[in-house]
């Protein structure tokens, strides 16, 4: 949320000169961040005031208009893309030869066959504002052909100030002036004092502490040029007198107002909650369904405005309006905030009400109205009163507790007096009366925040380093990804929401976004694999079809989420010298085994139910009988879908792995020789290597230290060549012992798995 403030308006409001160079920094340091400072540009006399005499649609382009523009000494044909051009409006014309602040020079041109000798300018094109919704349009007569710079205050400086939600008090010239003056002069600006209007009414409306309706006989008309310029520079659309007047007062004082066409209102308007099924068509033509939580203004016929947000179209003022009902009200900020959220409708009025409007501003606004319209005011009804400010009791010790022992509470609290707070010290505490415009301050922590803000965060004393340290936490715990980095894997980060088309029919209860950025980012990923494949596809399209990548992040199920780590190798190795082994299943399996070597009892079991993986070339990974992930070749149909080749992956759920750094006990090194014996077997094709090792391991031979596969080939049968290593810690294992162990093994493998020994023992 931001507000655009004119430096000149600020000075005019304060009646003093402010230093342009320092005010932006001061505001920023006070928590009113000046996001941009726009310095008025110097426009040449090629920029003049013109009047649109006639306008028609461009015959060859739907979005363009042909305008005849009178610039005094001549009438120019100008093609304009702005949709709001209208005959009799006054505009700023850049004539041929004019140079826009962005460096573009205006030249005679033909646009889709139609001549164009100049350009109708918007405020942003003139370099006055950052953005603008269309060209500058005036409705009040101005002398044609005169230098535009003389008409619009170009030598102004605009501050685009970003406002935090707590600072409703700064949502006006009055509020910013208060801050700017205090920053530059160290004290609060002299506030215009309003005559408090105390009006009683038997009827009191809900959540509406003050409510005034002025009936004014004042025919609508074009608004003053000075207002139009200021409003447009501040980002409002100038329309007609009544709309501009309410916007002008709101921008200056922070008090939103609404003008109804008095002759279109049936009976006496009142404030109430909407009824079930009531609707309203608001200014601009959009229709809203109302609910009983929404505060509205209603007349005898029904809703005529959404309280504090926007007026209805039926009762809106037009140029024909002769009498208006001018509403000035104080609404509870929570109620207006709720209306805007329920309706998703934000207006400059609701932005102010939702942040809190100074109840005193109602009286300032009323005084303005009374002064301007004097005899035209037919009646004033409603209720309003003197405002009772909030008082907060603050202990000195609390100030020090929050801000630090270096704080001097009494002195800090005294500073508040320069900001219209009233302070009564009493022993070790103070009673602080908060000015009405600070609707954000009601508790002692909010007062402390203000104390710190006035003192400045920047210069607040910082504690010694020794105070902020304590027992260091051990972060030496290795991350699983360390091994992957060492093997040349690139870490990726993909979006947690993915395209549902990748999931097919397999994940019916997957958490899905109600309001995704787009359909292809709408479902929470059950796996890291599709996101990685999609990123690999992106790379493959850029001639990077061979890669090793990984990602760690959350994966989601219907009611849970879990940290996961996935790695993928893809592509055929390029022919290189020296020759490199291709990345395959066994490369990733070896890598995963190494990564998890500190985790107890990792084992791999054939599996065929992972949707991403090849049903006959994938395995489930278990740690102590708990499933911790999968590994395998990516399903060929998925590889094809992503346009990738030779894709192997694993994904493990790292939350399920206890990353305990085991302190290994050192085993004594045997001083006896080891003996190796190689045997080869023929096995039926349904016998896996794991079947063989489990039979051998079940036999538990203490001297058998290692069983290593050194060759496997497939013909009609499978041939496994296995190396057996024997060693004892107590003696030399004799040849006859080895022979006995091996004959037992051979016999077991024969009887349990029907393995045939090739050759002799």
């Amino acid at each position, binding site marked *: 949320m931001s507000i655009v403030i004119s430096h000149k308006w600020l000075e005019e409001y304060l009646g003093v000169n402010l230093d342009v160079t320092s005010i932006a920094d001061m505001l920023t*340091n*006070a*928590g009113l961040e000046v996001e941009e400072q726009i310095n008025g540009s110097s426009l040449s006399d090629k920029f003049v005031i013109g009047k649109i005499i006639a306008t028609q649609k461009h015959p060859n382009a739907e979005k363009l208009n042909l305008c005849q523009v009178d610039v005094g000494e001549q009438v120019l044909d100008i093609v304009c893309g702005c949709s709001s051009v209208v005959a009799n409006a006054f505009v700023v014309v850049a004539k041929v030869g004019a140079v826009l602040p962005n460096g573009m020079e205006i030249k005679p041109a033909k646009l889709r066959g139609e001549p164009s000798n100049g350009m109708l300018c918007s405020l942003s094109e003139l370099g006055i504002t950052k953005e603008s919704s269309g060209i500058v349009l005036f409705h009040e007569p101005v002398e044609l052909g005169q230098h535009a710079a003389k008409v619009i205050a170009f030598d102004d400086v605009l501050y685009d100030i970003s406002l*935090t*939600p707590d600072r409703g008090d700064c949502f006006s010239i009055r509020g910013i002036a208060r801050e700017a003056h205090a920053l530059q002069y160290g004290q609060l600006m002299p506030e215009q004092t309003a005559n408090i209007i105390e009006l009683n009414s038997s009827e009191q409306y809900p959540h509406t502490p003050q409510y005034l309706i002025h009936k004014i006989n004042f025919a609508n008309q074009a608004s003053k040029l000075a207002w139009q310029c200021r409003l447009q520079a501040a980002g409002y659309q100038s329309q007609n007198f009544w709309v501009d007047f309410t916007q002008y007062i709101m921008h200056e004082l922070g008090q939103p107002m609404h003008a109804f066409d008095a002759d279109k209102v049936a009976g006496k308007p009142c404030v109430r909650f909407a009824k079930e099924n009531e609707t309203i068509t608001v200014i601009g033509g959009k229709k809203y369904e109302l609910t009983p939580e929404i505060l509205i203004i209603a007349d005898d016929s029904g809703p005529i405005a959404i309280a504090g947000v926007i007026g209805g179209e039926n009762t809106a003022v037009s140029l024909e309006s002769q009498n208006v009902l001018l509403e000035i009200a104080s609404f509870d900020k*929570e109620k207006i*905030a709720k209306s805007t*959220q329920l309706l998703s409708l*934000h207006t400059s009025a609701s932005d102010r009400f*939702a942040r809190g409007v100074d109840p005193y501003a109602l009286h300032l606004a009323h005084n303005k109205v009374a002064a301007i319209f004097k005899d035209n005011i037919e009646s004033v009804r409603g209720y309003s009163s003197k405002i009772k400010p909030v008082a907060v009791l603050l202990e000195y010790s609390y100030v020090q507790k*929050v*801000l*630090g*022992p270096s704080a001097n509470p009494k002195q800090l609290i005294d500073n508040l007096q320069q900001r219209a707070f009233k302070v009564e010290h009493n022993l070790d505490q103070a009673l602080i009366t908060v000015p009405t415009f600070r609707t954000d301050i009601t*508790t002692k*922590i909010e007062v*402390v*925040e203000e104390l*710190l803000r006035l003192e400045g*965060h*920047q210069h607040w*004393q*910082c*504690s010694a380093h020794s*105070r*902020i*340290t*304590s*027992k*260091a*936490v*051990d*972060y030496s715990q290795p991350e699983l990804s360390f091994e992957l*980095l060492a093997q*040349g*894997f*690139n*870490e990726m*980060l993909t*979006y*947690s*929401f993915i395209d549902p088309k990748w999931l097919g029919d397999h994940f019916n209860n997957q*958490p*899905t*976004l*109600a*309001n995704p*950025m787009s359909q292809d*980012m709408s479902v*929470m990923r059950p796996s890291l694999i599709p996101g990685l494949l999609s*990123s690999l596809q*992106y*790379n493959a399209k850029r001639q990077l079809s061979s890669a*090793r*990548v990984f990602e760690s992040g959350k994966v989601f199920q219907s009611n849970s*989420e879990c*940290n996961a780590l996935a790695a993928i190798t893809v592509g055929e190795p390029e022919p*290189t*010298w*020296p020759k490199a082994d291709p990345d395959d299943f066994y490369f990733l399996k070896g890598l995963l085994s190494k990564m998890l070597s500190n985790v107890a009892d990792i084992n791999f079991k054939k599996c065929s139910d992972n949707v991403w993986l090849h049903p006959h070339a994938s395995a489930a990974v278990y740690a102590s009988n708990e499933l911790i992930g999968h590994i395998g070749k990516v399903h060929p149909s998925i590889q094809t879908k992503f346009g990738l080749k030779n894709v192997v992956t694993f994904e493990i759920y790292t939350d399920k792995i206890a990353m305990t750094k085991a302190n290994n006990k050192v085993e004594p090194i045997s001083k006896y020789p080891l003996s190796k014996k190689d045997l080869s077997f023929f096995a039926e094709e349904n016998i896996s290597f794991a079947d063989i090792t489990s039979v051998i391991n079940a036999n538990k031979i203490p001297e058998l230290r290692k069983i290593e596969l050194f060759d496997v080939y497939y013909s009609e049968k499978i041939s496994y060549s296995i190396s057996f290593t024997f060693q004892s810690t107590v003696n030399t294992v004799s040849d006859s012992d080895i022979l006995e162990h091996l004959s037992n093994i051979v016999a077991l493998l024969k009887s349990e798995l029907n393995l045939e020994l090739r050759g002799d023992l």
Partner: protein
Amino acid sequence: MSDSGTETLAQLNAELSSKIDSISDFAEFNNLKSEFLGKNSALNQMFSQAKKLEPEEFRAQADMINSYRSSWGQVFQAKQSELKSKQEYEKLKQDAIDVTLPGKNMPKGSMHPVNIVRKRLTTILGQLGYKVVDGPEIEDELHNFTALNVARYHPARGMQDTFYLNSVDKLLRTQTSSIQIHALKKQKLPLKIISPGKVYRRDSDQTHSPMFHQLELLNVAEDCNFSDLKAVLIHTFRELFGQDLKFRFRPSYFPFTEPSGELDIEWQGSWLEVAGYGMVHPNVLAMQNIDTEKYNGYAFGVGLDRLAMILFGISDLRQMFQNDIRFLSQFAGEEA
């Protein structure tokens, strides 16, 4: 000994000195060796002659001859080992390789820049005693908003666009601050935690991504205050960006902290916003039944992606999630 004998030996000595250098193989070497030290060598003949002399004279002659013999022996010894090592060197030539051929391709892995920053920060803050905790990314209104003092219709809920899930009351967390609530519920006070992780907002352009990363710090104790918070922030960012880093602390607003502020650092001539900070709002603590007269806390949050962009000069946030390997591999060897 006769003068002529002495002369002859000196002549032979000079002859050997000049000949030995030109010897290049073992055949020449053996010829020369037998010529000077062999059975029929001049030296041997002189020795035979000397035997015929008086014992006294013989001893003198023999001493002289033997000193030449031993000196020449050393010359041949030296030459022999020279030839031997030369022969061995020649033999090794057969094993010659082209050392300029490429080494085996060892691809260099790379950590994602966001995670490089995350690791650096967890190390810096770990050394201050902060412990990493993890929290859910799918949250509910209570943890993401209500318990963080963002009332249902508070304007701050409009500050960020939230992703909602189809199931009732579920949303993607919009900030890692929701971790504060989980931590305050579960852990005992005092509490020092950091929580890095993904957050989600409905926004996408050059500087906004619908998914990005934050790191949240929370310290709740009987004795912690705003001065401490400033010290932690200054320490953290100096460790990350350099010891002469300049700061701008500005008041700001967050519903879950009070006072609240934003921190800018001076980087390459301009001020860049890097953190939001503040004292934990007493309402946040009170909602977890913590005595706010006894305890208070401080917290800050940083955008990891943003810090990575500043540190590594990345101009488009979206590049972070495009996963172009040509981008990622530039972080190979970057120390975390």
